[in-house]
């Protein structure tokens, strides 16, 4: 119970595209904003969860969605593990797949 009052300040790692590179995601920041802060050209457009450009597929690990992704993603995409990077905080280290327009290694 007292764990409720313990401030957890853990950062998590997103391993992208079969460990091609990693994104360090600070608590309270989203996967997209962390990637952009680290100079990664993650696909995006609106950054407010409405366009779907930043969608990516979670292979393993847990995220904390900030919105209901069902407004933007199809049920098949949701079932397959797709999320919006701009509205996802991390709850654990994750493995994620994303399609870059210009292939990024």
């Amino acid at each position, binding site marked *: 119970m007292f764990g409720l009052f313990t401030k957890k300040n853990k950062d998590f790692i997103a391993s992208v595209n079969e460990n091609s590179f990693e994104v360090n995601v600070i608590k309270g920041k989203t996967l997209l904003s962390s990637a952009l802060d680290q100079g990664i050209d993650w696909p995006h*457009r609106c950054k*407010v969860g*409405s366009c779907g450009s930043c969608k990516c597929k979670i292979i393993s690990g847990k995220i904390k969605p900030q919105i209901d992704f069902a407004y933007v993603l199809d049920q098949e995409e949701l079932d397959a593990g797709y999320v919006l990077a701009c509205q996802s905080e991390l709850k654990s280290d994750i493995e994620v797949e994303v399609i870059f327009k210009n292939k990024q290694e």
Partner: protein
Amino acid sequence: MKLYVNLRYLIVPISSLVTLFGIFLGGIYAWIGVILFGIYTIIDTVTKDIHLRAETDDDGNSFGIKQFQYLVMYFMLPVFISLQLALAWRIFQYADSSIIEAAYFAGFAYESGINTTNLIGATLSAALWAGLGIIYGHELSHNKKEGFLVSRLIMALSGASHFTYAHVYNHHLDLGHQDDPATAPRGRNVYWHTWLSHIGQSKFSFDMEKKKLSKQNKSFLSFDNRWILGYVYSLPSIILFVWAGGLIGLLALAAVWVIANFLLEALNFMGHYGLIREEGRPVEHRHSWDNDSVFTSWFFIEIGRQCDHHVRGETYFWELDDVGGPNYGIGYFSLFVLTLVPPLFRSYVKKHLDNWDQNYATDAEKVIAKQFESKNFTARAAS
């Protein structure tokens, strides 16, 4: 510096509390909210040439304190609820024909009972300041955690809970397109825009919920339907005002909602009037008008920095800055007065639109602008 940057955004919270206190005191004080609005219009007009940049420390970090600013925004929900309660109490006294006499509560002398003139003042005061709830409803709509719900509840007090979803999923995505009801095309006036934008955003929210629930194989009549839920959030206000004054209460609430939504849509109107974005092209600074004179910036918690906001929608208001986008050069209060007289507004905005066409628009956007001009010309010729 840190204190100054954070305290300067307290104009609306303090003024709302003064307005609330004025309605409580009764008599001529019920008009305080209206008088403040008038005073602020003068201050905004006089200080229109003062423009400040966002302040940061040497490392580029904002002086804004997130916890403090969010505490203030959340605090505004009970303040706006209290405004409605105070107005409902006055309506109850009016409908009950209470005797107008001096009374005391906790050491404060106030006027019990209210006459028709001062009830109109109380209603206008409550409506104007409830309408300003948009600045918090808007900021919190971009916070997807508990702030999103607070945004919905603040907007529900004005019968506009659909705004929170429509703003994020429609306005930010379709800005400058005809698919965005909140973007006013050239030639439209603010009165017509208020109606079209309100209905359009509600319809968008309706369609979005329908699509989402269909994808989830759920009935439209579901507890997960946020469009319906938004209007359910407005029910306590309706029940309160009907209980307080029957038809008079309902009329007063209607006045509050109409004025509040007019202010909301006037902000949308001023923020993007006549600007055009080619379909499929990204939102850029040129697709919004900035209104960032000093008083407007502080009063409206930087909502006037639309150019930066629409490109960096995830950015907190105290971090938004002047990005060199299209700028009306005057504050929202001054421009709002102009919008009330459509020919005056069109005359004022013409030079700014011409400047936009020449210096900001892409070739494709210029073509669309020309089509608008010919459409307006045809409409005028036909009438």
